[in-house]
């Protein structure tokens, strides 16, 4: 068989070409060259902050050699982009911020170590909202990312660069991070698959913290199967992350292809109605019908504390963020102001120059809710509400195998449409934020398009560590559309 050259590749997913890679019909070097070219062609989209051209080709040669020697890893030849808040030794990790503009990491994140040893080839670092604070990728110091399906629109955020890069086929998959919807919402806006695993399922070591009790790394992919394969590689206990779960990782591919006959899918009524784009409601209704026809039981349920989720989230996440971002002080690394006559001025000026408006807003908010005299009224009360929201889900999973909701109240909106109205912007995470408060797993899977042909992603959730259930239903929905 003739070896395929880069330009011949019209690849849809990693799983599709994996056998050709292993049988060496496609070499990793050719594949990598192809994707590096696509990345270069797509520069206008601004999905990438760093391009690893040389490094990626070197990695590709090594993976080719490993395949030749019969040592192919589970993800040999996976062309992967990495969100710029996940660190790799010797590479920049800007987090989309000016304050880390010159920061080069002295160590590598656990997920990267695992992916590289499985044969993944990292082609670059993706653009993102500054410190993952945003829902549109418009807060990045490195400029907005354009949605590949409509350059006038946002790709979603904060993992906007990752979702756009995958959707535009500039890589086979990307890592994102999800604190309140930052994987699922951009996946939905760009028409790709994105999972927020159970809190503790994936090591956070090397993920630059935003909201430590919310953050999870997850894959953004072109297929559910690719997604399951990547999570398989990165999930599992890490002794360097005390909050990672010391639990066995099931085989995520076994439930793929299983039907949905007999499973119970809950429909939380609080996730529908007012504020939801009608096209999305229509897609949801069609999907429900599809699932019922396949033998699933659809069960209307209530998650009564949902209305408090956004307020609760912004109290807790900003409290954690205000503390997590204190290390950016200009002392050891990152931006240091040239205009400072005293230590205090150095702090104030470095941080004022280094952080963007949204980050400053959240630091202020978080510092406020933690300050003496306000802690009980805000932070402590919010912790109690978090428990109530979490209990809502646990109660739902007593009778449901998974829950189905929209991922976002709208499809991708126009660049600039919401930048002047932070509250309006915060509401675009209304369906994703409760999941992070509860720590449960959720996936966004493309289920249709709106009247402007923009993708609509639906969200599936399951009880903690039941990623196999959401992969099963997501895979069913994906196959049903093909």
């Amino acid at each position, binding site marked *: 068989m003739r070896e395929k050259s880069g330009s011949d590749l019209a690849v849809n997913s990693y799983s599709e070409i994996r056998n050709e890679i292993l049988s060496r019909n496609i070499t990793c070097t050719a594949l990598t060259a192809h994707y590096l070219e696509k990345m270069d062609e797509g520069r206008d989209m601004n999905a990438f902050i760093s391009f690893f051209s040389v490094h990626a080709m070197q990695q590709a040669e090594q993976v080719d050699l490993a395949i030749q020697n019969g040592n192919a890893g589970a993800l040999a030849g996976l062309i992967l982009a990495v969100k710029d808040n996940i660190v790799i030794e010797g590479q920049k990790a800007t987090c989309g911020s000016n304050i880390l503009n010159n920061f080069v*990491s002295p160590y590598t994140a656990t997920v990267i170590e695992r992916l590289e040893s499985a044969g993944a080839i990292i082609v670059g670092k993706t653009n993102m909202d500054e410190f993952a604070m945003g829902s549109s990728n418009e807060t990045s110091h490195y400029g907005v990312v354009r949605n590949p399906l409509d350059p006038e629109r946002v790709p979603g955020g904060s993992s906007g660069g990752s979702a756009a890069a995958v959707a535009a086929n500039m890589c086979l998959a990307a890592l994102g991070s999800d604190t309140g919807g930052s994987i699922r919402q951009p996946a939905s806006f760009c028409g790709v698959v994105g999972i927020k695993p159970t809190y503790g399922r994936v090591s956070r070591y090397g993920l630059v913290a935003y909201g430590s009790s919310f953050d999870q790394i997850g894959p953004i992919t072109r297929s559910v199967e690719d997604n399951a394969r990547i999570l398989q590689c990165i999930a599992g206990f890490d002794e360097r992350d005390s909050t990672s779960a010391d639990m066995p990782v099931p085989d995520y591919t076994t439930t793929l292809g299983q039907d949905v006959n007999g499973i119970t899918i809950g429909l939380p009524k609080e996730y529908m109605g007012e504020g939801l784009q009608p096209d999305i409601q229509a897609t949801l209704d069609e999907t429900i019908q599809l699932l019922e026809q396949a033998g699933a039981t659809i069960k209307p349920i209530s998650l009564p504390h949902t209305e408090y989720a956004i307020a609760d989230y912004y109290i807790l996440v900003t409290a954690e963020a205000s503390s997590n971002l204190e290390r950016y002080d200009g002392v050891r690394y990152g931006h240091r102001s040239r205009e400072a006559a005293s230590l205090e001025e150095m702090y104030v000026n470095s941080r004022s120059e280094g952080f963007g408006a949204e980050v400053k807003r959240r630091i202020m908010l978080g510092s406020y809710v933690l300050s003496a005299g306000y802690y009980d009224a805000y932070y402590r009360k919010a912790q109690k509400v978090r428990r109530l929201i979490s209990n809502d889900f646990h109660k739902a999973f007593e009778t449901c195998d998974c829950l189905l909701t929209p991922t976002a109240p709208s499809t991708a909106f126009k660049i600039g449409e919401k930048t002047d109205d932070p509250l309006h912007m915060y509401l675009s995470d209304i369906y994703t934020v409760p999941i992070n408060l509860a720590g449960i797993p959720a996936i966004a899977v493309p289920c249709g398009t709106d009247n402007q042909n923009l993708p609509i992603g639906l969200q599936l959730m399951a009880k903690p560590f039941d990623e196999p259930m959401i992969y099963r239903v997501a895979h069913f929905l994906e196959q049903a559309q093909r």
Partner: protein
Amino acid sequence: MEFETVIGLEIHAQLLTSTKIFCTCSSSFGAEQNTHACPVCLGMPGVLPVLNKKVVEYAIKMGLATNCKIASRSIFARKNYFYPDLPKGYQISQFEEPICEYGHVDIIVEGEPRRIRLTRIHMEEDAGKSIHAEEFVASDETLVDVNRCGTPLIEIVTEPDIRSPREAFVFLNELRQILRYLNICDGNMEEGSLRCDANISIRPKGDTKLGTKAELKNMNSFRGVEKAIEYEVLRQTDIITSGGKVQQQTLLWDDKRMEVQPIRSKEMAHDYRYFPDPDLVPVDVAPEWIEAIRADMPELPAARRERFRTQFKLPEYDAAVLTETKDVADYFEAVAAHIDDAKLVSNWIMGEVLRTLNEQKLDIADFPINPQRLAGLVDLIQKSVISGKIAKSVFTEMLTSTDSAQQIVDAKGLTQVSDSSELDQVINDIITANPDAVERFKAGETKLTGFFVGQIMKATQGKANPKVVNQLLMEKLNKK
């Protein structure tokens, strides 16, 4: 008006774990600057802390030793503030739900028993060291050494139960002794492995309401703590008796000038915004673990002092001196195991042994005469084989030799002569050689006994048994 002093102490003790509290860097003291550092203790973006279990064990040890309640679940919190030697911008400490609470330490101050209650003991990480105004630092520069970042500490907080500077001193000494017995902190205030801040207020005697307190920092010796508190009590008394009001403030003790200086108010206007650290899971302590730690605890200083008084019938002073450190107490017991006369052993250790350690700046662990050898020496005295005086020279010999006391005595022929037939001749010779003295003695100058004994000892190179010599000499002189 008579005033009562009210003092509460906050003591930071650096723990002797081999690694830091949240990473695997060495926590040893004195390494080259900025060599004990890794991404975690440098606060690099994306790093996470992992708790060193040894720190929890040590904190529980101290809690048990000070009669605390050990929490089955405790949590870490972040204390947020900016300083160049604090890489993360927050210190990981404990705030709500500390590991130990409700403890107490009993002490005796000038003969009076006193109970000092402990509010809490909690675990935390140390910050780095800012270095200003050293030879190698320019006057407008501050350098930071991060080696100390993440060194494990316990903070011990007392209730305001201490009533005098002396009491603070005694309490601190007792606390240090406990830390050292447990081998969890070397307790060196000069090097900063033990640090003490004091909250001081005064109030009219009989009042139950606390007065306005000042916080004293920067004392770097036990004596400094006592002196600083003395100074502050006088300062507050002066203010109040002259009609003024004590300001709540933080004061730095200046050991050279023997006075306090207030910290600029700006530096103390902190709101630390404590909240539970989401990067660490709660510390769950199973009852079995506590029991295992308890079972492994050494006898504590107070109990040992008491036992030395009862079991060995030692005076209080001896018991206190011998139990000052665990190693000396162990040494004493190892010697006393072979000797009936514990007081004789005590005298030798408090005298010759401690003096030698002091002079040679040695730890007892490095003392060249091990307990068996010292027991051999004391045994020879107890059995009248050698006199105390000869024993001192044997002791000196033993410091530089590995021979036993018996071997040295044998080799040098130092065995005490108690045999009267041997001594008869010597005594007769001395009497014969000094007729004048004999005459004066008989005339009533009894203090000449000393002269005769001295001559006899000289003639026997000190080996004559003084008791036998005395007896024989008296018999012979009185017969003349």
